[in-house]
């Protein structure tokens, strides 16, 4: 347990505050997309309010791709995973800790920034509520997906670009249910977003752990 606490402390200092990016770049990227969209479609308030939620979702998905290359690969290159392995710490638990740290570094910041984005796009209160809840239940799944894909593509030439391409189709269910909950009444879309998220969270540590062991060769 104290080992996992030490790992989480390191991951947070790297991903949340540290030299591997931090939340600033994804947040700025997210805001930039939300700002550019009204310029592109014009100042039609009704159209913006109707499509704004979907735009926020797409922007969140793209922002979550930005830090992928820094999630797993640097630690493999440094020999960290080898050192953890011979201390008997399983790759699965390391990945689980990293998913938590990764989520903390972009999930809550994006939810906060969504308030600004919603104002820029003129979303009403009900849509904003659904966007926020949708992001709350959807971004953990995005984090799990991101770490898994980062582990699968670690060490590959052009791995970063490939990681982005792999995440996008796999994130489509989250997008459909998350953004779809805005168009359809009721909260069933949010529940399905949460379900997809949970499935991804359940698979990710094992898939990513196996990928890291496989990369050791």
């Amino acid at each position: 347990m104290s080992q996992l606490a030490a790992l989480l402390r390191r991951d947070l200092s790297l991903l949340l505050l540290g030299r591997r990016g931090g939340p600033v770049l994804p947040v700025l990227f997210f805001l930039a997309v939300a700002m550019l969209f009204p310029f592109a479609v014009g100042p039609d308030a009704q159209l913006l309010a109707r499509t704004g939620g979907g735009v926020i979702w797409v922007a969140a998905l793209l922002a979550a791709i930005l830090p992928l290359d820094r999630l797993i690969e640097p630690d493999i290159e440094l020999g960290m995973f080898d050192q953890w392995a011979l201390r008997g710490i399983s790759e699965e638990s390391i990945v689980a800790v990293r998913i938590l740290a990764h989520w903390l570094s972009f999930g809550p910041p994006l939810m906060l920034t969504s308030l600004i984005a919603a104002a820029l796009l003129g979303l009403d209160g009900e849509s904003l509520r659904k966007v926020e809840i949708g992001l709350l239940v959807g971004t953990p799944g995005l984090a799990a997906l991101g770490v898994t894909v980062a582990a699968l593509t670690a060490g590959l030439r052009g791995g970063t670009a490939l990681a982005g391409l792999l995440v996008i189709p796999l994130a489509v269910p989250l997008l459909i249910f998350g953004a779809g909950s805005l168009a359809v009444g009721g909260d069933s879309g949010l529940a399905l977003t949460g379900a997809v998220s949970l499935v991804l969270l359940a698979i990710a540590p094992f898939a990513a752990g196996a990928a890291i062991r496989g990369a050791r060769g």
Partner: protein
Amino acid sequence: MQAACLVAWELYCRRGDRLLFGPLDLWLEPGEALHLTGPNGIGKTSLIRMLAGLLRPFVAYDMGSSAMGSITWQGSFALQDERPALDPHLPLGQALAFWQRLDGHAAPLDRPLERLGLSHLLDVPVRYLSTGQKKRAALARVIGQRADHWLLDEPLNGLDRDGVALVEALIAERRAEGGTVIIASHQPVVMPGAKTIDLRDHPA
């Protein structure tokens, strides 16, 4: 007979399509040391990684071997290879402190750091350290782990003459405390009474 610290049987190593060495049997008792030698590419690093459990022994059915090679350690072991496993952007002190926290003992590293000549570098980010200083830092990490046995892959690379003598002294101390030390190095290492295995003598 004393209990063996390391027993390994039937180790074959394959990298890609090439069988590098095997079968190799190892037996180390407390206080013993082993020096792995051989030219580049013979499989020294692979053997070290295999002994650390990071690489699976190859099962050479066609060579008459039926069983997966087995490696049994008695006690914990530490590994030093060409990567220091220290966060490059962190000051050396903090990078080492992470491993101290992870290994769960707050024992101060002051004395080892003093001996390794690193005490004045604790505020310097790891990426600014020289090759030899990084080697010394990795040794500090190994010492801090307080493992029974050491696996050292080319520990002398980049070290100056004092550094080499220091590594030899540290190895002797580890052995005196009943640990075993396995070194892969193409350079001569002074280790009194150490076994030597030249991997050229164990061709596949």
